[in-house]
């Protein structure tokens, strides 16, 4: 008997020690970081090691499986999208013909691919032709449907011929993919759609090592035409989001974290503040770049989400101010329209639709969704008001929002089932139309509004979202018109109409305006952002000597 008691006591003691350690953490971690803070000056970091929630998967920039930010370091496009508009990148200058159907680019002459191959008109033609031969994949980017020919004028001059004028052409040429350039030596049988045998781009960094699900190492391209970057080595480490990343940061195993290309913040807002308080790290937030939203699949005809009233009710049942204040600690402002008004063409008068659960209930009542006595979920003709919402399992903020929204919808008699999946799977659902509601975000300043709106008609993006609405045909006609219109005022009014239709139909339910957040070592300078949320200008960063 005494033996057993002893066992119990011994066990309890171990327990107490272990958990005591745990609860002492707060004080302990402060101490630990302070110590670390004293150490850092001696071994101030010279390279960046960033945490990635998943592997970079595929470096082929002519398809879409891989990580945008990694591809952005290695490959470059002809032109660049900056705050001041389109600027030269691999093309020094260009001319657009009077009818808007021909673009002639004069290429830089001092550019080589990482493998030594020269970058010239021939390479441009080979790359763009390879992309065009895989046209189905690129339907979201309307340029791919209008590009008819690539002509090599001389070694450093190339002409793109379009079937009709298309005003966002330069915009779309600036995207991270697909119109970027891979050394033709990496092609397999003259194609890029089935993979590459190497990843030589023209960019400031080259990929030197890739261990699947472990890490990818990038080294500075010393021969970079824009000058060799200051940070010589960048490593991407695959780490599970959340406290593993936090610990690794605290310990210095990684020293850089940013919002990834699917909008996943690896670290909780409070934990981030904890880190900066200790003095080793800085947090840099971009201006709001996009709108985080719930996308409703209007084409699911046998689901309640097909009904406009249901979508509007969801819209009105969500308290965005609380999401912004509580879940994002005020770092992301609440959003009430698909595009914030600073986006070009998006400063449109739209009817106000804010948080109003009473109005939401009324909408549902009027649409025939009745709440029977003692029931929690409304029904109509025997079917229940139940929907599935897909979120990225790696994003704790999405999960928290999903749970919060689930609760708010329950209050108006709607049941939401939450399903967490990998972001790639959620993206696949979007393109296959295999969803009712899912978390998404607009594509950022370089893409909004023209490409995001053009993508309303693209199978791989938002076609399923918009297909089922009452005025779908009208919407698609207007979208087709707007990109070919050469006149600024018609364009404006067409965009206003388009935004009015999708606002009215409530297929894109905005939540907050998000941006890119970077956690970086205190000594890192030159931290900036691009006009897209998908990549960062690493080549402009340097360490405080």
């Amino acid at each position: 008997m005494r033996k057993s008691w002893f066992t119990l006591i011994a066990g309890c003691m171990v327990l107490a020690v272990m958990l005591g350690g745990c609860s002492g953490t707060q004080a302990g971690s402060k101490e630990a970081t302070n110590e670390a803070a004293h150490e850092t000056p001696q071994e101030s970091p010279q390279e960046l090691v960033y945490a990635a929630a998943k592997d970079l998967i595929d470096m082929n920039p002519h398809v879409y499986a891989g990580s945008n930010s990694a591809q952005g370091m290695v490959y470059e496009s002809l032109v660049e999208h900056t705050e001041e508009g389109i600027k030269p990148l691999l093309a020094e200058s260009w001319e657009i013909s009077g009818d808007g159907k021909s673009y002639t680019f004069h290429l830089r002459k001092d550019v080589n691919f990482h493998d030594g191959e020269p970058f010239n008109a021939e390479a441009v033609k080979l790359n763009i032709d390879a992309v065009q031969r895989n046209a189905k994949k690129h339907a979201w980017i309307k340029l791919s449907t209008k590009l008819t020919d690539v002509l090599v004028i001389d070694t450093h001059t190339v002409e793109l011929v379009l079937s009709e004028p298309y005003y966002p052409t330069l915009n779309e040429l600036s995207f991270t993919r697909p119109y970027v350039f891979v050394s033709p030596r990496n092609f397999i049988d003259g194609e890029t759609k089935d993979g590459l045998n190497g990843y030589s781009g023209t960019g400031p960094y080259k990929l030197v090592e890739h261990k699947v699900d472990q890490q990818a190492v990038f080294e500075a391209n010393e021969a970079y035409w824009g000058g060799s970057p200051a940070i010589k080595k960048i490593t991407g480490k695959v780490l599970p989001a959340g406290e593993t990343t936090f610990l690794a940061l605290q310990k210095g195993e990684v020293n850089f974290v940013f919002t990834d290309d699917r909008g996943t913040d690896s670290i909780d807002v409070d934990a981030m503040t904890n880190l900066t308080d200790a003095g080793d790290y800085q947090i840099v937030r971009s201006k709001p770049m996009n709108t985080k939203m719930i996308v409703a699949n209007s084409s699911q005809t046998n689901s309640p989400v097909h009904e406009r009233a249901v979508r509007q009710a969801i819209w009105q049942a969500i308290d965005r101010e609380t999401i912004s204040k509580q879940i994002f600690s005020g770092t992301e402002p609440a959003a009430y329209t698909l595009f914030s008004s600073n986006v070009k063409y998006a400063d449109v008068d739209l009817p106000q639709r804010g948080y109003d659960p009473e109005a939401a209930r009324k909408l549902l009542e009027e649409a025939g969704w009745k709440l029977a006595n003692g029931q929690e979920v409304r029904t109509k003709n025997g079917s229940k008001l139940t929907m599935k919402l897909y979120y990225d399992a790696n994003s704790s903020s999405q999960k928290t929002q999903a749970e919060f929204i689930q609760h708010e919808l329950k209050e108006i008699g709607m049941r939401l089932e939450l399903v967490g999946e990998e972001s790639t799977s959620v993206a696949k659902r979007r393109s296959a139309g295999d969803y009712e509601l899912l978390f998404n975000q607009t594509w950022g300043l370089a893409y909004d509004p023209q490409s995001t709106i053009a993508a309303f008609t693209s199978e791989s993006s938002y076609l399923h979202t918009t297909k089922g609405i009452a005025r779908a045909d009208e919407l698609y006609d207007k979208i087709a018109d707007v990109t070919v219109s050469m006149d600024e005022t018609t364009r404006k009014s067409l965009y206003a109409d388009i935004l009015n239709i999708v606002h009215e139909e409530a297929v894109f339910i905005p939540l907050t305006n998000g941006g890119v957040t970077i956690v970086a070592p205190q000594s890192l300078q030159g931290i900036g952002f691009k006009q897209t949320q998908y990549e960062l200008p690493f080549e402009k960063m340097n360490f405080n000597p």
Partner: protein
Amino acid sequence: MGWYMAKRGLYAIPMMIVISFLTFILIHLSPMDPAEVVLEAQGVPQITPELIAQTKAELGMDRPFLIRYANWLIDCLQLDFGHSYVSGEPVWTLLGPAFLNTLQLTFASVIAVIALSVGLGVICALREGRLLDRSVRGVSFFLTSMPSYLLASLMIWYFAVKLDLLPTSGMASSASYVLPVVVIAVNYAGIYFRMIRSSMISQLHEDYVLYGRASGLSETTITMHMIRNSLQIAISVFCMAVPIILGSTVVVENVFAWPGLGSLSMHAILSRDFPVIQAYVLVMAVAFVLFNTVSDMVNAAMNPKLRGDL
């Protein structure tokens, strides 16, 4: 002896055929049509019923079930498990390295389990009923009742961050092995330790020990004898533990970002990468059967009494 070995070895073959068959059926449990899975993997944007029918014909999916199974099995034997639905890469290029990583973790853990459980088992048996014995048993009891992810989180915090001794995750260096191996070892050693302790205690009452003592052999010599005997147990524990631990590293791998099968399968599940899941199940089950077969053979070789009915 040889007869038993042959029989046991041959027995693994029908087992593997059954496993492969069950795994083949598995894909039919998924809510998606296999043809649809293939099309999605190829990234075809619009999947129409005609396209599905056409793919079915191309892939021979309209042929009888058993023929499809045979074709699939032949592909699998050549390590052709199809292409990942997420990255489009051949499944084996993902699975192969991950399998090796998991094997490495498993072997390291099993060695730690043995060292810990045999070491503690012997010490506790010699000190049966005393303070040391009781405290070790108490501690091991509570550690076994602790969820491994909780233990792992606490260990990362303490050893990797607070003391800054070890890396938090990944498998960059040999130091990366320490924490995951310790977590697994602590969890399993509790079980095996009790087994070894009991067997040691029973040995203490064996005739040869009593006789040895009576004839004036030194305690050290007797202990050496006992340790030699318990080595046999250690080997059989080792053989039993390999397949069990191999199949259950999922949680630990995920907490420590170990690039093994556990992490791979978890990502595959959350991204509905059916070809990878299927291949994972097949590879794990085959490995499990192989290790169990070897384990039975080793046990039988050491312990002829066990060669009873199969």
